[in-house]
């Protein structure tokens, strides 16, 4: 009898093995933080003196990173076009999302200065975390990186998401680099406004398009936060049957230092964050940032940014 039960368990293990393997491969990544040069330390903006939010027990901060990782880019040396700091306070069920403009010109943890989206390409997740942590004076507990195709497949694997798209997104020259043969092709995009059910491709079009947005990356950041919120809402409905499809969708497209046991603890918490009024969105619009930095990038007005950031991120 025991042998038969054990063999049944073995069948179950065989079924969930790919998902478990992927979970083990994707999670618990070791973060290697580069050591900055002395010069780097001198030019980093100092967070001291800025008012800080009082530490809250159980609160944690995650850096979300999203990258175009199509064939135009070398694997593991991709830019992070999307960088969002998320702080969760479980006791009050409050979430704060701070979108960091990809074109922000900052001191990099790997040395020198550059656009903040380059930190990951120079030194991986550790460099991205160290750059954000030092420049913004924020303690980051964890990171999650996801590739472009991974986000599309993730949304499809969870059956699409419901989003209230804030405005029509019209783009006559949207990059057709995901499924086309030539990664420099263009296509037309028209994502209409209002509440709707989006599949992965259309959700990606909504968050990625920037040609039709006067605010360019700022507008895009706002849309990214809307989609993130919708994914979180949908994730509450996940069940064990969904794990194999999810693992297939995310194969190689997701990395995080968060361990599996931690993920299991976070899922019920994510499910409880369902008050739209408890989700605070922060964007670094002018006067916090403005043009005029090298390569068309943005100047960071640290004297304004740091007090704002430290209201929400101790």
């Amino acid at each position, binding site marked *: 009898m025991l042998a038969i039960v*054990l063999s*049944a368990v073995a069948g*179950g293990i065989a079924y969930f093995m790919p998902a478990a393997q992927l979970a083990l491969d994707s999670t618990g990544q070791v973060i290697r933080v580069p050591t900055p040069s002395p010069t780097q330390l001198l030019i980093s903006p100092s967070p001291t003196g800025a008012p800080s939010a009082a530490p809250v027990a159980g609160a944690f901060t995650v850096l979300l990173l999203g990258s175009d990782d199509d064939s135009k880019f070398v694997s593991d040396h991709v830019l992070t076009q999307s960088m969002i700091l998320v702080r969760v306070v479980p006791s009050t069920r409050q979430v704060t999302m701070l979108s960091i403009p990809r074109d922000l010109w900052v001191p990099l943890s790997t040395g020198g200065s550059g656009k903040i989206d380059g930190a990951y390409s120079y030194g991986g997740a550790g460099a991205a975390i160290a750059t954000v942590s030092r420049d913004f004076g924020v303690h980051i507990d964890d990171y999650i990186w996801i590739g472009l195709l991974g986000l599309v497949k993730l949304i499809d694997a969870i059956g699409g998401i419901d989003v*209230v798209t804030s405005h*029509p997104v*019209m783009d006559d020259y949207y990059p057709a680099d995901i499924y086309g043969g030539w990664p420099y092709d263009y296509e037309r995009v028209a994502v209409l406004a209002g509440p709707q059910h989006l599949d992965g491709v259309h959700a990606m079009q909504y968050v990625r398009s920037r040609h039709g947005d006067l605010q360019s990356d700022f507008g895009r950041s*706002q849309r990214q936060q809307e989609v993130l919120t919708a994914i979180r809402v949908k994730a509450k409905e996940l069940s064990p049957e969904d794990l194999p499809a999810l693992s297939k969708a995310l194969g190689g497209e997701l990395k995080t230092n968060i361990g599996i046991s931690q993920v299991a603890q976070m899922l019920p918490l994510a499910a409880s964050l369902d008050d739209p009024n408890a989700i605070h969105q922060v964007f670094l619009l002018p006067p916090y940032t403005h043009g005029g930095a090298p390569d068309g990038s943005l100047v960071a007005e640290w004297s304004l940014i740091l007090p704002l950031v430290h209201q929400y991120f101790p």
Partner: protein
Amino acid sequence: MISIPVIQASRVVLAVVLAGLMVLSGSATYIVLSSRTSKIAKAPEKPTAATPAPQALTLPGTMYLSQEGAIYSLSGGKFHELTVEAGWMQPALAPDGNIIAVKRDAFSSDVYVISPSGSALRQVTNNAAPARLKYDTGQNHWSFYPRVSADGRTLWMSYDDPKFGYDVVLSIWAMPYAGSLNQGRLWTNAADYTGGDVQPVPVAGGGIIYTKYDFGPDNRLVGRLWFTNRAYSFGKALTSPDEDCRNPAVSPDGTQVAMVCTYEKQVSYLTIATWNGSTLGARRNIVTSQLVAQPTWAPDGSGIAYLAPNASSNGDFQLWWLPKAFYAPPPVPVPTPTPGGPHNGPLPASTPPPAPVVKPIEVTTNNGFDATSPLAWGS
């Protein structure tokens, strides 16, 4: 007495049987787990394969909806497929009994007139780029949200012209219903890099209510309802930026407007307000627990239909019906004359009857209608 060879043979048989059971058990577990389908990724049914709730029988007239690029009608509690799945969306009724709708392709969309039975009668716009200019995606155009005026003379739509390079916005255009877009007239001045002006709704007395997207005081893009009765005029804003409203629908008697308002959050409330022909009255949020899209008044004024996900439909948008009793103001109590003759003093206040408890009715449960397509509803 049992011989040793017999015992050994029995053991071999037992071992083989046990091994078989183990293989069977392991395989069966794997197969059973594999056969379990994810509820979260379950595809919606075609409306014609579904059985609408009994309340669908009570819906007046004929309603037209879009799902997966096909247009369906709903009448007498049954769905009928009018077009094949080929990018059809946004049906609207014309006074001549025909339906106008959008057919969307990958790079462009066009307005068509189709018969009540679903056959295409006329292609109104021709928005695909000419073959010699196919290399430039910007040579294509979009037409969305067609509507015909009550007198049947004017066809309104959102059309992405003018546009300049990356600045692609939809503007409201008006053209003769029986004519071509060459005879059309640009009606609104869409704000640059906003998505533009959409959802024109012709109103009695001329003019349109429409949704304009523009930057609010907080630099975020929001929707506002506007009214204009003059070509290329800004017209008059009907809602404020912080309300973030869209999807206007005028009641059959022309005295109320239904809309959805989001207050710049990931919510979508069904809101109604009185309409006097130029301004909106106080707002009433009558459904706040659902992600409401495309509110549409019943042609006989008996209620409002809309699209919204349900708790078990995997986020796909279903058809809902809100009887008038849900949102109509309670009746004003009529004082009862005191028996025994004329009465000049104040009458005793009568107690109004308790308001009926009416909840939105879910007409479909697993259909996944296109929430960006307005519903068309005729008597």
